[in-house]
């Protein structure tokens, strides 16, 4: 038991590296918030664009969404981080992480919001158009608000899953929670920083996981 405490909850190590991990937590939170906001905004915009059913545009959106959903984010992170500098585009590790996860979340959000748009009854479009609203107005004022409401649970789940992936930043040296913790762990030769990191992630994400469970019980998505 003492060995266990000494290894995983060593008070001296915890105290020493808590500030670094707290700094990491700030990075994780900022990245997460930015990724969620821009990823969902971009995905929703793409789903709306797809609603106009201009064939080449829709096809491009579908291909984009399919590819970004099929590729492991870590592959994209490495491609951006190691590949782009050699063609003259150098992005910081944090920026790479932000861009990749935003693009990935946008792909999923596009598919989810699109499912909501297609699940909105045709009569809603017709009622809106029959009162003289244009296509864009019907989409913006009548269909999209219903579609988004319908897909809040899957969108929340996906946003959580993808913001958790900010931990992948550690691989390219982003000083987020996990990045700080692995550095601290190698300096201290002790596992306590990892325990602290796990705890930090739980503190950050558990409320959202529990909230998503509550949302799921409250709303029901398309087909369920």
């Amino acid at each position, binding site marked *: 038991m003492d060995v266990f405490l000494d290894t995983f909850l060593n008070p001296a190590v915890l105290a020493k590296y808590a500030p670094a991990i707290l700094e990491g937590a700030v990075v994780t939170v900022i990245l997460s918030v930015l990724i969620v906001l821009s990823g969902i905004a971009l995905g929703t915009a793409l789903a709306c664009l797809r609603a106009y059913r201009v064939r080449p545009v829709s096809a491009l959106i579908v291909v984009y969404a399919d590819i970004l959903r099929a590729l492991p984010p870590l*592959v994209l992170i490495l491609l951006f981080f190691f590949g782009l500098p050699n*063609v003259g585009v150098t992005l910081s590790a944090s920026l790479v992480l932000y861009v990749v996860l935003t693009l990935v979340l946008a792909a999923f959000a596009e598919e989810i919001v699109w499912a909501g748009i297609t699940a909105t009854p045709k009569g809603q479009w017709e009622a809106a158009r029959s009162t003289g609203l244009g296509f864009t107005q019907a989409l913006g004022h009548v269909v999209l608000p219903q579609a988004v409401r319908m897909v809040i649970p899957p969108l929340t789940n996906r946003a959580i899953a993808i913001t958790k992936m900010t931990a992948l930043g550690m691989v390219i040296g982003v000083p987020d929670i996990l990045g700080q913790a692995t550095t601290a762990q190698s300096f201290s030769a002790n596992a306590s920083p990892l*325990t602290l990191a796990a705890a930090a992630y739980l503190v950050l994400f558990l409320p959202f996981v529990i909230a998503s469970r509550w949302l799921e019980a409250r709303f029901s998505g398309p087909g369920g």
Partner: protein
Amino acid sequence: MDAILAQFFNLEIMAKALPLVLKGLGVTLLICAVVIPLGLAGGLLAALGSVSRNRALRWASIGFVDFFRALPPLVLLIFIYAGLPFAGLRLSPFAAVTIAFFLNNSAYFAEILRAGLLSVPRGQGEAARSTGMSATQTLAWVTLPQAVRNVLPDLLSNAVEIVKLTSLASVVSLGEMLHAAGLVRSITYNASPLMLAAGLYLVLLWPLIRVIGRFERRIAS
């Protein structure tokens, strides 16, 4: 333009990387073959627990699921692979990956199967029990098949996520596809091996994603 081609689509380097990357693909598939069935089994147990009438069991199951849904899988993997040795427990990369992904996947599968179980009308189980079937028989022959059918697209989506998740094993130097591609990249200073791996992931997963989309549309209509 030429620089982009040379950096991302260098066929010569891709050809050199191919044997190693294909070997990595084999490891990727092996991890999946181990981790997906394990995750399904663990997920089923946790799902059954989470719909059980026993309060303690229900909360324990939900706690397990939420805990591992909140913890990033890479954190779990590094904790197991790099943290446990300090306590004298040294695991091979494969064992560490298996344990970490088993816990993570179980949580996600549990959440899906739970929704499936809840979607089966209560009368189905009651009808089966009324014909003298045991609880286990009822589950195996009546409730579970319907539950699985109702959430099949979600189960398949999660399988796709697991294939993508195996790329994390590269972080603990398990020689799966991304690790192999990354190795060649670090030797050649060229991103083409990564593009090769990306292409193989697409070949593997794009058809699945299309099929799942079709399933979902059929269920929605």
